[in-house]
């Protein structure tokens, strides 16, 4: 049986509140907070990007896996904010954790689904016996256009998972994928901000694919919601994952431990992977976890994990996701946030 050997997350320390963004655009903060079920979001510092956060998450995963990084045979980073248009993120991360040169790297893209994609491929190679260990990382520092609804939620964070066959913290019992061509969210080459199809991003996009994937994987596994201790779905805001969980028949108790969006925002490729990391921080041996990602364009990857006896033995070896989220927060004013995120056009470009 293959599964997760080690996992780790990273959250930048800076935050901006919904009130602070709404103030600039004369928007009604209470209605945004209610509509999105979100109070604040994480913001990367100017010296942080998908590569730096991936390194920190990968180092935390290695602390829990307790393996020689040279044995990692593949490293995949899923992101829609790779720092270079041409030059891989994966080689820098592999070099920083000491996994080079005998490692296969690829940078993956599929809107917010890219992180679970890396996990899916790394797991597949381990199952096939081609590599001993494989790492899948979901990380993003995504941007919403100033004043757009996405600006309230587009956040930054990363989660990394090492897959292998021995010393598992969670077995992978089932996988499943569900995709169609759906134009709900996109960004063309050389465009700085993405475009989205407004309300079309809901029913025919997020809900159709998350529900299709969750129902498909449960059918494949012969499982029902009561067989799971936890569910984590992609979190474009606080509202969608709550609603989709309820539509599937899951309770608040099953949904809330992995529900990070209210104080984290939407970390895109990092979203459901980071939620999974928060669940692994508290799950008991034998607990089953259903994870369903979502990426626009559009599709969902599903995983069924089962926690093992080793999970409680290693979880304290690295910072827990809720600790990273709730501690050491630095709140920004909109001006500093705009400077941090390169939203201000300068006369003198360095």
């Amino acid at each position, binding site marked *: 049986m293959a599964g997760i050997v080690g996992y780790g997350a990273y959250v930048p320390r800076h935050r901006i509140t919904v009130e602070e963004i709404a103030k600039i655009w004369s928007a009604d903060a209470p209605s945004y907070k209610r509509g999105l079920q979100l109070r604040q979001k994480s913001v990367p*510092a100017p*010296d942080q*990007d998908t*590569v730096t956060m991936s390194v920190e998450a990968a180092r935390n995963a290695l602390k829990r896996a307790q393996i020689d990084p040279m044995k990692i045979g593949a490293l995949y980073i899923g992101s829609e904010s790779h720092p270079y248009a041409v030059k891989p993120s994966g080689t820098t991360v592999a070099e*920083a954790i000491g996994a080079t040169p005998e490692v296969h790297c690829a940078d993956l893209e599929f809107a917010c689904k890219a992180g679970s994609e890396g996990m899916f491929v790394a797991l597949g190679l381990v199952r096939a016996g081609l590599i001993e260990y494989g790492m899948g990382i979901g990380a993003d520092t995504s941007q919403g256009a100033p004043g757009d609804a996405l600006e309230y939620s587009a956040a930054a964070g990363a989660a990394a998972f090492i897959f292998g066959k021995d010393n598992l913290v969670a077995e992978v019992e089932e996988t499943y994928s569900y995709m169609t061509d759906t134009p709900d969210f996109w960004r063309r080459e050389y465009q700085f901000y993405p475009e989205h199809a407004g309300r079309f991003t809901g029913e025919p996009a997020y809900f159709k694919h998350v529900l299709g994937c969750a129902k498909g994987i449960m059918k494949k596994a012969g499982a029902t919601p009561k067989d799971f201790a936890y569910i984590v779905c992609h979190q474009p805001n606080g509202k969608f994952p709550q609603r989709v969980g309820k539509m599937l028949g899951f309770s608040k108790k099953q949904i809330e431990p992995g529900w990070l969006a209210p104080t984290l925002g939407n970390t895109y490729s990092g979203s459901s992977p980071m939620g999974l990391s928060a669940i692994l921080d508290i799950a008991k041996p034998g607990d089953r976890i259903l994870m369903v990602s979502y990426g626009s364009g559009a599709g969902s990857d599903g995983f069924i994990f089962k926690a093992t006896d080793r999970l409680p033995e290693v979880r304290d070896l690295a910072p827990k996701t809720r600790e990273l989220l709730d501690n050491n927060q630095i709140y920004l004013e909109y001006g500093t946030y705009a400077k941090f995120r390169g939203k201000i056009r300068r006369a003198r470009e360095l």
Partner: protein
Amino acid sequence: MSSPKFWREIPQRYRMEAGKCSKCGKVFFPPRLVCSSCKGQDFETIRLAGTGRVATYTVIRVSATQFADEVPFAVGVIDMDEGVRLTSQIVDCDPESVKTGMPVKIEFRKVQEEGKAGILCYGYKCVPA
């Protein structure tokens, strides 16, 4: 910083690789060819754990052009737990809040950009522990 110079320093900048004298155990960062205390020439490559304390620091208010957007920022001399000293920017805090003896830890960060079209140089910086 030129790309080749940056590339040569990757083991230290990315992985905190240090040299530990096989004879007397003294650690050097960056590694050296000859041990300054026992003149030994055999070294084991180790990785610094990334935790230490601020030995001394200064707050930069007028910087080189490429860091002009970051002022004011703190730069510290850090006593690492392995007994070596290194110089590092201290970020994710108000520079006025930095104190001598303050515990810090290393994080992987972008250290500089070679202009808008050049390479991104990554390496270590310190944050409050």
